[in-house]
């Protein structure tokens, strides 16, 4: 595969560009064009009317985490510690416990994510061998008054539903 | 009457500023008190109906020279530890004052022998920009040119002195 090489002409060498004035006025004309257009008709602004209009969230968008479960409601996670090991922010803390339903040997006794530490990098999702942790809840605004409520436990993580159907999620390529 | 009050105020301020200059340990304090002196001197010049000199005093002395000094104090980042000790400066000041007192009284005697004169504001453009400028460029042209050369020499000298030295081997 040969790389396509495009030679760009280097700007700023000619006399009129070196003297700056012409270029300054051209730049100012450009910015004024934008200003004037938006001043006359502000419906052309490239803005999202956020609090009133909810943003559209694509499938691969990384929102708050959740833990997935089997069809019978048991947790998929087997407490393999892959996500905890991979987490660059050290926000995941797992304690493993014995699993009695026969699906695997272990299950998490506690699974906490500190959202104030989390950097939403998505490495935990990448690392998980069983697709047990996902970031597809579509929750982008995480606010509260006290620090304790940002530490999510196993129950909360399991109860949050995903924002997309299974087919959409698979098609999204995550 | 109002001019008298202004004179009293300005002169007290200027003397206080000058005393502050010689007594404060830190040069920043000294410089700020000198600024007070210079500004009140500008006010005195205005009382003596020297309008142009009033403006020039504010621009050159209070504006340029003092801000240069302050700039140097900031540039060298002079903090209290870098200063000379000067524990006995008040002793020196009092001693110097005792020595200088006869000089002061002698000069005062001379000054008081001058004929009394009013200092009301003079009208008809005395001290205005145009009048002083005409005088400067007619009668005082040669000194003016010499001063301009002096300024040029000072400029070059300052650049040579404070500029970067090449390391000679």
């Amino acid at each position: 595969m040969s790389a396509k090489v495009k030679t760009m002409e280097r700007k700023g060498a000619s006399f009129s560009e070196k003297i700056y004035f012409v270029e300054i006025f051209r730049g100012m004309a450009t910015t004024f064009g934008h200003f004037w257009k938006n001043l006359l008709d502000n419906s052309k602004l490239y803005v999202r009317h956020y609090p009133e209009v909810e943003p559209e969230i694509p499938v691969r968008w990384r929102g708050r985490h959740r833990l997935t479960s089997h069809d019978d409601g048991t947790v998929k996670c087997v407490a393999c510690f892959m996500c905890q090991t991979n987490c660059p922010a050290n926000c995941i803390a797992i304690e493993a416990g014995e699993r009695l339903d026969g699906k695997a040997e272990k299950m998490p006794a506690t699974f906490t994510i500190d959202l104030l530490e989390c950097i939403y990098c998505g490495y935990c999702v990448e690392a998980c061998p069983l697709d047990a942790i996902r970031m597809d809840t579509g929750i982008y605004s995480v606010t509260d008054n006290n620090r304790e409520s940002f530490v999510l436990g196993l129950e909360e993580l399991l109860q949050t539903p995903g924002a997309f159907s299974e087919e959409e999620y698979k098609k999204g390529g995550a | 009457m109002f001019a008298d009050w202004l004179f009293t105020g300005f002169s007290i301020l200027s003397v206080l500023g000058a005393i502050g200059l010689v007594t404060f340990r830190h040069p920043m304090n000294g410089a700020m008190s000198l600024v007070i002196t210079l500004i009140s001197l500008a006010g005195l010049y205005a009382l003596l109906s020297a309008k142009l000199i009033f403006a020039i005093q504010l621009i050159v002395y209070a504006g340029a020279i003092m801000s240069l000094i302050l700039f140097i104090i900031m540039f060298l980042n002079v903090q209290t530890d870098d200063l000379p000790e000067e524990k006995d400066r008040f002793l020196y000041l009092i001693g110097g004052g005792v020595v200088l007192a006869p000089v002061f009284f002698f000069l005062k005697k001379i000054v008081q022998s001058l004929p009394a004169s009013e200092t009301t504001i003079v009208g008809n453009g005395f001290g205005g920009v145009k009048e002083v400028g005409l005088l400067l460029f007619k009668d005082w042209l040669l000194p003016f040119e010499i001063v301009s050369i002096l300024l040029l020499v000072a400029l070059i000298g300052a650049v040579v002195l404070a500029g970067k030295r090449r390391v000679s081997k």
Partner: protein
Amino acid sequence: MSLLDIILVAVRVAFAAFIPLCFIAVCVWMERRGAGFFQDRAGPNRANIFGFRAAGLVQNLADGAKLFFKEDVISDHIKHKFYFVLAPLIVFFAALVSFAVVPFADTLVLNGKSYIMQGIPIDIGILWFLALAGFGVYGIILAGWSSRNKYGLLGGVRSAAQVISYEIPMGLAIVSLLVVYGTVNLNEMAQFQGKLLFGFIPMWGIILQPLGFMIFLIAAFAETNRTPFDLAEGESEIVAGFHVEYSAMKFAIFFMGEYIAMFASSAIIVTLYFGGYQIPFLATDTLISYAKPIAFLLMLGLPAGMYFFAGWIRRNNVSHYPRENDPRVYEANIYIKCFWGLVIVLELFLFALLLCQSEGSAAHIFVVLLQVSTFLLKVTMMIFVYIWVRWTLPRFRYDQLQKLGWQVLLPLALLNIFITGAIVVALS
């Protein structure tokens, strides 16, 4: 001193003191909304009082309230607390007082007595401005030095050196202007610019001194520490320059001082190069003798202008997303009603002027008001230029800045003086 004298003194002092303070709000608003529009954003438009957003002006109130109630921190390592507190005040008041010499209308003649329309009636107008511009440096130096912190010190050194070195081209540009006008009095300068060159071009400073204008403009940008010369507060290198250590109201005073300096230097640029309060082709005498026709034309023009303005408000003050019973339409209707009310008041005022029989006083006052509004309009446009440049040009590097000042502007200013002198000598 009659009652009229006292009233006029009060009016002009109030004008010189309060108009810059009022313009802080306008400047901040223009800056933020303007920045938004330049970058295809909307700017702050959510803060409101009972749903009235006043096009974003309410945001200023919110910011002011926030700064006012913030904790005022003076760090423990700051030894010279007096200078630390003094510095923002110096910046603020130097800027405020430097505006006081700018004439905002021609000399008002009432009952045969003339009243000068500037805050401080002083002959040496432009020299006063130079002196006060020099005092602003003290604030920067004291703030940078007393912060006792590397960022503050470096920012202070930078911006003090910048202000000191750009004062020289500024002064030289003014010198060539003085050669042309032959006076240092700002009011006489503005009167000079009311004349016409070759009978049809207004004799503004920018036409007589184009090179001087460019030099003065660049130097004024550098004096006010605005982009492209705002490297005192290069966020990427020295965080906020000399006001790193400042918080709450002390920072707000610095901030307001900067905007007042911007306003004052816009006013000076307008007075020196854009005819000050003069309306082009209409000198004060012409205005006074044709006061009634002009008032009549204004009476016709105001509703027409208001009609388009109302249309603009109605078009733009709506929510650009589906919404039931859009409150912004209601808001826009109220604004439009207020503005129509204002127009009616103005119309009544103009009508009273038309009916007024006494020649002289009424026409004189009308002309003064007209000139004040012209002046403020010009100043606002100049402030817009400041904002426009800020959101167009990138920041200079420090050595480029000093090189521009000393190696380009200084020789150009000297050349400008030389050319001006030669032309003035040749023409006289």
